[in-house]
């Protein structure tokens, strides 16, 4: 996969959890992070309505990657972030992922980071990534994932849903439904050109 995963350990490997009943496996896997994520979601909601430019709440988000390793979003502090909520069963989500793959390759060196987030089992997501050649990180979670998506503006809880954050992790653009490649490309060009004022 990406080879970029910070091995922060903690959860059992994904293939072990895949043998547990789905609900229980995710209860165990997600329990440790759900409180944090919900808190982050709430903070994000507040930040998106009150202090839009303060993205510090997003940086506190931690979710397991498809291998089951907890990943802090803070590893991408200072990057332009594209957070895509998706699912393997969602055809329009699958259709736009090759465009995300192209844009990730195009803008990687300029500090743009894509991450796909779904509420499915890690092994399923890993298999999908392999089959369809998705190389940007795919994170998974439980109920906190749709909750986060909803708090970021996804009123009906549908997929795909994409939110773009600037280098200070403030939400800049949000789409429910496919994000047209050319619009996203020009937005990323604009955001990548802005460096952080310290």
């Amino acid at each position: 996969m990406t080879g970029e995963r910070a091995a922060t350990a903690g959860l059992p490997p994904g293939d072990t959890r895949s043998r547990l009943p789905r609900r229980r496996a995710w209860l165990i896997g997600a329990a440790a992070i759900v409180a944090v994520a919900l808190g982050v979601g709430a903070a994000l909601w507040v930040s998106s309505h009150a202090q839009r430019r303060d993205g510090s709440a997003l940086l506190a988000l931690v979710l397991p990657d498809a291998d089951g390793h907890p990943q802090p979003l803070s590893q991408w502090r200072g990057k332009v972030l594209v957070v895509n909520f998706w699912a393997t069963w969602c055809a329009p989500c699958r259709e736009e992922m090759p465009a995300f793959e192209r844009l990730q390759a195009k803008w990687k060196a300029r500090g743009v980071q894509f991450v796909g987030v779904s509420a499915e089992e890690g092994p399923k997501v890993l298999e999908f990534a392999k089959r369809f050649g998705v190389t940007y990180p795919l994170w998974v979670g439980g109920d906190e994932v749709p909750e986060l998506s909803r708090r970021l503006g996804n009123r009906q809880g549908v997929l795909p849903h994409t939110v773009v954050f600037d280098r200070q992790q403030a939400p800049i653009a949000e789409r429910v439904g496919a994000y047209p490649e050319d619009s996203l490309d020009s937005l990323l060009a604009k955001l990548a050109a802005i460096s952080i004022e310290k």
Partner: protein
Amino acid sequence: MLSLAALALWHATAHAGGIEALQPKLLPPEQAFHFSARALDPSTIEARFDVADGYYLYRDKLRFTTDPVPSRGAELPPGKRKHDEFFGDVDTYRGAVVVRVPLVSPAAGQTVTLHADSQGCADAGVCYPPNPQQVKLSIPAAGGTPGPFVDAARKGWFK
């Protein structure tokens, strides 16, 4: 004209803070895929989805089970073939979908719970998460009149 109509399907909201948000106008799942059911006779339940215009359900994602009296397998009507780039040929339902769910044995006078799993999408290019719903039905006596349609209204989430 066409583009105006297409534009009308989308909400564009610009907030004071400058976030650009674009989303299609979407019905909540319980309206997009309205689910109800009734007991036809002591050993038959009729499940029904009323799918709103511009929305569709996947035939192979429909699942019906009953308890405490089990059912023998729902009689799904043929769907409309749709070619999907990733899923291949899939059958979909639009409009009214009526499914007969036969019980393994008559259950006159009992209360039977029908569980329905469904998943659908909107032509606007989004999909709703799998939605488990249930309705409780009072099963009529033999020779009695069919029971009333009972609604299920529960929100789903993407999983």
